[in-house]
């Protein structure tokens, strides 16, 4: 009975730490209000380039769906969420190592990976404000309205989890190799072209279906065009959970290596 009590106490303490991390980050985001405006401007301009260039036209043929702009926008949103999920932990780790707060978190009651997950959730919560703005503008400017499907939300959730795992791997590299800003930029931009966010050849997507974002793009577009997506959804879940596990494991390995090499304290 005492052990059960201790265990539930420990879970509550970890949950407190997890939710307080979200709380701290949301407050920080709200104090950088201009970033919402700059993000929205960037996203709208980028979307305008995609739409005016008829970039996603081939999606209409591929998925036999008339409104290809919806398929383009939804892929663009998935890419945005994925990039945020991936880069939030990497930039957070680099920033905290520089600021000296990482060391205080490393000895916390809650694992650093869980705290980074909380940080990612807070980043996505802040991003929702930008998304709402983007969706409203997309409806107003280009008459694009994305129909609501629970499956799309679930696909986004699993994709986020998988991309977070990939982000943990990159965070581990950031600890080990220190400056990976340019690698991050390359990966983020590369994802746009290889994950079918903008039309990508099948030869490429056959390889990149190991990336959760590629699977997510496929699932949400099949769902919107009314086709069967069961097998693709299962694949998305498997790949995302796998990346989550791999990311966690390799992050730990990188932290241990950094402790051995003295990288943590000399960041």
């Amino acid at each position, binding site marked *: 009975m005492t052990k059960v009590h201790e265990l539930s106490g420990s879970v509550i303490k970890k949950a407190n*730490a997890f939710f307080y991390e979200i709380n*701290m980050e949301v*407050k920080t985001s709200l104090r950088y209000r201009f970033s919402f405006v700059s993000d929205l401007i960037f996203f709208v301009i980028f979307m305008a380039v995609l739409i005016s260039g008829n970039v996603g036209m081939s999606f209409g043929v591929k998925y036999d769906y008339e409104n290809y702009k919806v398929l383009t926008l939804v892929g663009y949103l998935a890419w945005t969420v994925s990039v945020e999920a991936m880069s939030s932990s990497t930039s957070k780790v680099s920033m905290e190592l520089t600021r000296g*707060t990482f060391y*205080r*978190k490393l*000895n*916390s009651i809650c694992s650093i990976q869980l705290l980074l997950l909380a940080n990612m959730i807070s980043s996505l919560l802040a991003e929702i404000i930008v998304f709402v703005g983007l969706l409203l503008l997309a409806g107003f400017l280009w008459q694009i309205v994305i129909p609501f499907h629970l499956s799309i939300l679930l696909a986004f959730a699993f994709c986020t989890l998988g991309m977070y795992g990939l982000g943990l791997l990159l965070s581990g590299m950031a600890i080990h190799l220190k400056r990976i800003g340019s690698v991050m930029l390359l990966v983020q931009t590369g994802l746009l072209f290889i994950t079918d966010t903008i039309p990508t050849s099948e030869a490429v997507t056959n390889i990149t279906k190991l990336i959760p974002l590629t699977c997510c793009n496929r699932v949400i577009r099949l769902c919107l065009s009314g086709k069967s997506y069961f097998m693709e959804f299962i694949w998305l879940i498997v790949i995302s959970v796998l990346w989550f596990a791999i990311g966690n494991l390799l992050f730990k390995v990188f932290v241990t290596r950094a402790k051995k090499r003295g990288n943590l*304290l000399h960041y």
Partner: protein
Amino acid sequence: MIQLHKVSCRFDKNYILKDLDLDLAPNTIHTVVAPNGTGKTTLFGLLADLNIPTSGTIDYQNGFSKKDVVLLLAGDKNLYMKNTVKENVYFFGILRGLSKKDIEKNITFYKKIFPQYDEFQDKLTEILSYGQKRIVALFSAIVSESKCIILDEAAEGLDISNLQVLKELLQEAKKDRIIILASHDFYFCSEISNQIYYLKEGQIISKGSNLTRDQLFEEYQKLFG
């Protein structure tokens, strides 16, 4: 109690610490005195589990564990600048597994030494002065019940009033805790420290208890010229 036994730490081919023995008892302020680049930060990193020794052992005994060690780096770091002082203090307490009630109780207790907390608590950390940030970082570590607090370059950049608050906080905090400092300020070291260790070539080559400023300086001159 934390015991280091024949601890060596090597990065690439260079030994930073070599066969270092050190006993760190609670209720004591331990100060490591050494010129720059002699391995103080590496030693602190080992204690806080941020480095892994190449050989030797570090034993955490009598209720102390790796997780109880907090390392406060030199400079105006260790805090979240876009959050308020109160948010920071609560956050680090919650990260240590404390309830809000416990944190509140601790704040009330230690506020007697740091009454400016009431004035600072709703301010963003970024607007505090360098010295105030240092004090807030230490305050957050004490309130969060860290059993071993390491303060690198403890007195660096503090004015007289902040230095006084720092001393009082450390004197109060050392009860049941291990406090470890590094400082180049011999006046401060002699006033505050119970144990002084001189670190040279990766080893503790000399130590002394409750040294006066002159004794401390004399020994330093003898060892490091």
